[in-house]
């Protein structure tokens, strides 16, 4: 099976240690483990937001140390645990993100489609100050969709959502991934989500990669 990421003898301070890990291309990978186990650290390394103290990470057979970080991040978009929405309108939030990636701006019609995908029934002119925590999180996710990345790195994308919305949003995310043939790598606290949607499950415990399950 083709890999999108390969990790070789990775060590990050005394937080995370991974001897070898392959993350398959065009599949849904769920990363699970108790809090503080190093899941977010792993995700940040894949985005080259932090560098491992030792070892090498390959993105499609190319060492990410040799890649331009910005180029990598434009293909591998990450949604952090506490995503920031920019203090402006919903439309501007899309436009700012597209501007960061130096992509062409999208017509309103397209943006509204992304809002529907995250079940955010709001006008593009509305300012983000009026949104709740969960709504901001969904806007941040819609922003990632709009950037049309090859790989999505999502760090607990549903942490601020109620169970019902959570299921809806994860399902939409999974559909998006499948429909456009993307790779999804998602940290989640919900075991059920990992079991239901994960085609590849990575379990991390106390900074060690302990198990990989494939379906």
């Amino acid at each position: 099976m083709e890999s999108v990421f390969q990790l070789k003898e990775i060590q990050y301070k005394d937080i995370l240690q991974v001897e070898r890990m392959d993350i398959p291309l065009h599949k849904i990978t769920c990363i699970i483990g108790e809090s503080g186990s190093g899941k977010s650290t792993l995700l940040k390394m894949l985005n080259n937001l932090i560098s491992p103290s030792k070892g090498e990470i390959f993105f499609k057979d190319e060492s990410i140390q040799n890649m331009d970080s910005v180029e990598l991040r434009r293909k591998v978009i990450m949604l952090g645990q506490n995503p920031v929405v920019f203090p402006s309108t919903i439309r501007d939030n899309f436009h700012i993100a597209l501007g960061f990636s130096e992509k062409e701006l999208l017509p309103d019609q397209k943006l509204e489609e992304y809002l529907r995908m995250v079940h955010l029934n709001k006008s593009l002119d509305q300012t983000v100050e009026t949104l709740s925590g969960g709504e901001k999180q969904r806007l941040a996710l819609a922003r990632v969709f709009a950037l049309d990345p090859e790989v999505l790195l999502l760090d607990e994308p549903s942490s601020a959502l109620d169970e019902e919305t959570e299921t809806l949003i994860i399902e939409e995310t999974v559909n998006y991934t499948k429909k456009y043939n993307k790779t999804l790598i998602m940290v989640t606290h919900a075991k059920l989500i990992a079991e239901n949607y994960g085609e590849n499950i990575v379990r991390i415990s106390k900074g060690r990669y302990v198990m990989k399950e494939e379906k």
Partner: protein
Amino acid sequence: MSGIVDLGIWQLLSAYIFVIFLLVIVRIKGISREKEILISSIRMTLQLIFVGYILAYLFENDHPGYTLLVIGVMETFAIFNIYKRVKGKLSMGLKKVIALSMASGTLLSIAYFLFVVIQISPWYKTQYFVPLAGMIIGNSMTGIALGVDRLVDGMRAKKDMVETALMLGATPKAASKTIVDHAFDSAIMPTINSMVGMGIVFLPGMMTGQILSGTSPLTAIEYQIAIMLGILGSVSLTVFLFVQMGYQSFFNKEKQLVVNE
């Protein structure tokens, strides 16, 4: 116009009554500031006497070497003063950027101001060079110190925002743009605001000095306008150079955000 009245030693001493007055007030109020008041009054007196003699000597012995030495001392003092003024620890990279932008920005402005605007001759004429360069360096120092404060604060406070931008594929420049713009704006605003009140709310020090020494107020304002524009130019240039290079010190080769808490 008559020249300035030289103050006799007793006249000068009589001005210290203001210090005594302040000491009495803090004593009565029970505010324990006597030590600071005494030290600062003594320091002010000694430093000014010292500078007075140095300048008197320099004016009589004009020499390019002296002028360059004075500029060097002023720049060094200004740079270390900026390091001291900023709250929190500065990274080595940022310190280098401060020194570089301060030195290059002010020297460029001073050169333009003295040789193109004022056209002093010879170029090292201490009587013009030292006070005018001093004003430019002093004001630029205040500007950069403010800019450093805002940039460091902004990078720490908006760490999440910068990281979010990076995750969305932003270059470090785009990710820190709002912080950089804010730092630049905050650093130049005091200079711009001081121009608004000038002549109405207060008479600037240089102009006051010239008028006291018998210069026509019209000549005095010519110099004041010129120096004000020179200061504006130098503050803008130094702060611009600083923020342009400064934000980069918060990112490493891998374009990762490095903020020491």
